[in-house]
């Protein structure tokens, strides 16, 4: 008889600050040893659900509970967060903020310290936990020396101590590059198998989580559970697109080929699924001619010529050269510390090359100040909250013009034009605090566009966004590119973004430029993928398994997808 560890019965939760309940009528039972994925778009209530389980609701965020929730048989309404945390370990999304110790060892020990465990007993426990996540060599490292993936492993080690029976991972993949993300999914899987703890993963990236087996998927939407069954059923159900979850690429490819998907083919696992029923149609599809969208090369607007740069003695960019032409959409990819951000800082003039030079429209950029470069190359940072300084949208957008002492008339004219471009004109007098994350992103982009730059550089424009908001932001950027010819450089980890929205990828690894070619070529080149911490897409695996050439297959897929999008666009217009 399976023992339930989480039991929701007619459960509801309403935050004190909100007028309506965030969770309605939840009935869900998770049994000991299960591995469950809680899937859902932003605002679907999946994080609220997780916070009800670990006790943050209502301990840190006050609210009203209806119905019943039992964790390991204990009614949570009457329990303190500390009693719950004995059974439940949570790894939060922000791996930086949750690292409270000054060294890896201290951080892993934090929960034990609070239990007043004597140090002699603490040391072996810390060592054991660090070994589980393969961080035992780093016990004396400070947080600033660790990568995002390593910090996350430490957080995991910090909550994995013996008594904990349930592990919750809140969006574990949000801040990781593709390969590290893959590793994280694998690690979670290994811990689940070896420790027999119950695992709950909160994510909206279905494909990445399905890299390893999950027992069950709970799909949430607007505070309700809309699906609760095995992954295979979900993939063939068609619910994903209805609730704004991106389906795995290979599933999309199967659908494009007109395959009838059935759940008995082991469809949740691209590596082992039975492809026989689909093979014929897939091969047929590949032969079909699709018109390739070829971009006419515009004039050269940016040339990076043999640029090197070092922080102190540490060389971070070595002899990098590339050019950008007008109207291009280019993704800049590579693992953390490969030199992407340094390149962005060089382009925006914050740093200047130690060797080599950068030319903007043929002009030597050494003659320009940062301010002057800002009029030609706009740099939009990842976190809009780090960029917005004014209260009102219009004031924020016109700031760059005020700082340049433009006349009122010129300013009004340009601000109006920019706000219209970004679809913000109707909201121009709104306070910034009243708008969504995606709109804040637009504001930061508008505040750069107002200077009419040749290029804008966007650092992880869709980080932490679900598929719906991702599509919203990316379609907006795509429109800017098409309608107004704005050249865009995307610094990103997201291979989906690169495939869907960019034509060319510039790949950095260890400070060197290791590839500068069309996206489909990069994604089918094993060496580049290895060097840049990227991961093979499931398309590659699919092509490989049906015996066709991955490069050709991915190119075909991209072209077909663009065609469909194009058609959708023209019917919508």
């Amino acid at each position, binding site marked *: 008889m399976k023992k339930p560890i989480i039991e929701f019965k007619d459960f509801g939760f309403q935050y004190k600050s909100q007028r309506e309940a965030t969770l309605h009528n939840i009935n869900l039972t998770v049994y000991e040893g299960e591995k469950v994925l809680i899937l859902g778009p932003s605002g679907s209530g999946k994080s609220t659900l997780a916070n009800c389980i670990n006790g943050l609701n209502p301990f840190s965020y006050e609210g009203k509970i209806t119905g019943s929730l039992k964790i390991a048989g204990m009614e949570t309404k009457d329990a303190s967060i500390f009693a719950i945390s004995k059974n439940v*370990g949570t790894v*939060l999304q922000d791996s930086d903020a949750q690292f409270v110790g000054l*060294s890896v060892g201290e951080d892993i020990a934090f929960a034990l310290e609070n239990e007043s*465990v004597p140090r002699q007993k603490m040391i072996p426990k810390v060592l054991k936990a660090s070994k589980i996540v393969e961080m035992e060599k780093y016990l004396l490292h400070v947080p600033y020396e660790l990568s995002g993936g390593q910090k996350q492993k430490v957080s995991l080690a*910090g909550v994995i101590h013996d008594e904990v029976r349930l592990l919750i991972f809140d969006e574990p993949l949000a801040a990781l590059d593709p390969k590290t993300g893959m590793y994280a999914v694998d690690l979670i899987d290994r811990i689940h198998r070896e420790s027999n703890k119950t695992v709950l993963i909160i994510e909206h990236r279905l494909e990445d989580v399905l890299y390893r087996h999950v027992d069950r998927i709970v799909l949430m939407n607007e505070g309700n559970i809309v699906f609760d069954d095995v992954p295979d059923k979900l993939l063939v159900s068609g619910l994903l697109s209805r609730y704004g979850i991106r389906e795995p690429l290979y599933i999309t490819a199967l659908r494009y080929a007109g395959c009838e998907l059935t759940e008995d083919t082991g469809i949740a696992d691209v590596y082992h699924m039975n492809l026989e029923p689909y093979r014929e149609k897939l091969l047929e599809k590949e032969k079909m001619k699709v018109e390739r969208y070829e971009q006419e090369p515009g004039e050269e607007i940016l040339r990076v010529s043999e640029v090197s740069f070092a922080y102190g003695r540490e060389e971070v960019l070595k002899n990098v050269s590339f050019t950008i032409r007008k109207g291009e959409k280019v993704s800049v990819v590579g693992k953390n510390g490969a030199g992407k951000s340094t390149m962005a800082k060089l382009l925006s003039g*914050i740093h200047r090359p130690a060797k080599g030079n950068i030319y903007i429209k043929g002009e030597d950029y050494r003659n320009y100040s940062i301010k002057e470069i800002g009029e030609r190359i706009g740099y939009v940072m990842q976190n809009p909250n780090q960029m917005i300084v004014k209260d009102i949208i219009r004031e924020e957008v016109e700031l760059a013009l005020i700082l340049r002492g433009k006349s009122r008339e010129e300013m009004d004219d340009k601000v109006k034009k920019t706000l219209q471009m970004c679809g913000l004109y109707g909201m121009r007098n709104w306070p910034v605090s009243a708008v969504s994350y995606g709109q804040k992103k637009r504001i930061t982009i508008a505040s750069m566009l107002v200077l009419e730059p040749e290029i804008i550089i966007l650092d992880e424009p869709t980080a932490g966004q679900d598929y719906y908001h991702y599509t919203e932001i990316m379609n907006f950027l795509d429109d800017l590119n098409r309608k107004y010819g704005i050249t865009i450089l995307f610094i990103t980890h997201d291979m989906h973004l690169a495939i869907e929205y960019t034509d060319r990828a510039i790949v950095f690894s260890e400070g060197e430029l290791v590839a500068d070619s069309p996206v489909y070529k990069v994604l089918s080149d094993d060496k580049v993928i290895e060097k840049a911490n990227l991961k093979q897409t499931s398309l590659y695996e699919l092509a490989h398994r049906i015996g066709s050439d991955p490069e050709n297959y991915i190119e075909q897929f991209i072209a077909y997808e663009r065609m469909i999008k194009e058609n959708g666009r023209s019917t919508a217009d």
Partner: protein
Amino acid sequence: MAGQLLINLIPGETTLHKLTGTTKVRFFIVLLVFIIMSFDIRLLLPLCILGIVGLLSMKPNWKVIKYFFIITGVMNLINIFLFWLVDPDCGAIWCGGGSTVLYQFSGRFIITAESIWYLSVRFLKMMTSLVISMVFILSITPSEIAAGLYSIKVPYKICTIFSMAFRYIPDIARDFDNIKISMQVRGVELDSKKASFMTRIKQYVLILVPLIISSFDRVGNIANAMDLRGYGKGKTRTYYSEREEQKADKAAKILYCGLFLFCIYWIITKNIMPQPSKMWYPFS
């Protein structure tokens, strides 16, 4: 990042580094009392020499601490010079009333043996406190400060403030840099050659707004992470960074306990029951 900070986050390898946080904090407090109470070269000079020996034994990075010594040294020289300027005969009341004039510039500007003595001791006192503080700061990690304070019955929530501050200051500094960059790109001029002082102040205020907002976000996350791991659960807590007592700690304990008793004796006899002569002067 860590290399640029004066304070270590990871304990070093020398004997002083290896003392427990409790020993370091208690010893430091006793020595502070010792320095504050004494205006006596017989007490200060040995301590200063021992402090320098201690400092040398830790093989510190002189490049960083050199500046502290130079700045403090210069400031204190100016300080005693001003003392002399205000009252060239300032040593007289401290050394038993007499003034032995060694040299006379003009009128009241004289150099007396007593003043030289008094001002030298004053300088030595300042430098000793610098040396001792330096030894303390270089030998301890923020977590050990927390553990040490906890050992003298400071509530652990206050102790945590020390370690947390050191944990997150570099993060906030990094946020600040990022925001500064985004502002510079938009045309905020922070170059001292191109913008006036007042303009730059205004520009920095502009940067503070997003910095404060993003720091608040972070504080919420940190608090959650701590709650989830049971922080604040019990009345007591242990420290992973607090090592077990070694022989050196036991020896240090005897030393600082003895020193503490001596301090009490000294304060009662010399400070509370003042005598005509306020400092030891061998030449009266």
